[in-house]
């Protein structure tokens, strides 16, 4: 049997990041980078200004990094991890978005400024990041619901999938 490179790729464990899912992963990766960069700067430069907000910032960065990995990695366990982290993101952006908008002092912030020194990716529902943090978890959930993991060994290599790409 002669096997061309593309069909060899198709016989590997099916990955979740195919088609438009790749774009989702790319946006997640960029957001993870942005959140990690911002929180690293906040913690190194002026952690004492708003410790609660900056700890939250670092936590959100960690959640985005794990979610990015979970979307790429195959298997049922990572699928579950993806659901958990994306749920945390949605809860985070709603809770922190509401608190930072209506009661900023509760989480140690003093101004409703999405670009401010003490803001996080989730402040003001992610307004500082063009509301991407608010929209992304919803898109992620829709996408996860439509792409349930299949048994890794039971998946034959469909020739149509190899040629379609």
């Amino acid at each position, binding site marked *: 049997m002669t096997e061309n490179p593309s069909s060899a790729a198709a016989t590997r464990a099916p990955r979740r990041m195919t*088609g*438009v899912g*790749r*774009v989702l992963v*790319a*946006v997640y*990766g*960029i957001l993870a*980078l*942005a959140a990690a*960069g*911002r929180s*690293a*700067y906040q913690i*190194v*430069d*002026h952690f004492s200004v708003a410790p609660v907000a900056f700890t939250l910032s670092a936590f959100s960065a960690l959640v985005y990094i794990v979610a990015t990995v979970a979307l790429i990695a195959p298997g049922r366990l990572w699928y579950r991890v993806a659901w958990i982290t994306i749920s945390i993101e949605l809860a985070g952006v709603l809770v922190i978005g509401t608190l930072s908008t209506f009661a900023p002092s509760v989480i140690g912030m003093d101004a409703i400024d999405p*670009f401010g*020194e003490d803001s996080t990716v989730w402040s003001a529902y992610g307004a500082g990041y*063009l509301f991407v943090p608010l929209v992304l978890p919803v898109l992620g959930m829709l996408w996860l619901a439509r792409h349930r993991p299949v048994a890794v060994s039971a998946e034959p290599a469909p020739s149509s999938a190899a040629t379609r*790409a």
Partner: protein
Amino acid sequence: MIEWFTAVQVIVAVLAGLLCLVVGFIGRPPNDLTLGAVALVELLLVAQLVVTIVAPIVGNEPSGSLGEFYIYLISALLLPAAGGFWALIERTRWSTVVLGVVGLAIAVMTYRMGQIWFVQGTP
């Protein structure tokens, strides 16, 4: 940081991003045009890096935090490299869309860099 150069950079990044999104949604895999557009964006970022290393030495100081500025600039420099690498491995239309997302992300990040340099005061 030079104001007109930064403005040009934002405009080029937006145009490159939109171009890649359109070409991607038409269904084309990454080609010389889209990869070239992203390469141009990366080239301008490298030029911006040189400008912003020299600028504080010759008296053009940022009004905001230089550390925060460099976090944005270095992150922005990584994106076209990552997106381009991906585009060379995965020859599908979605890689072109990813290049478009990278272009628009860089436009936003460059705009933020401009804000840090020109607008943001030291707290």
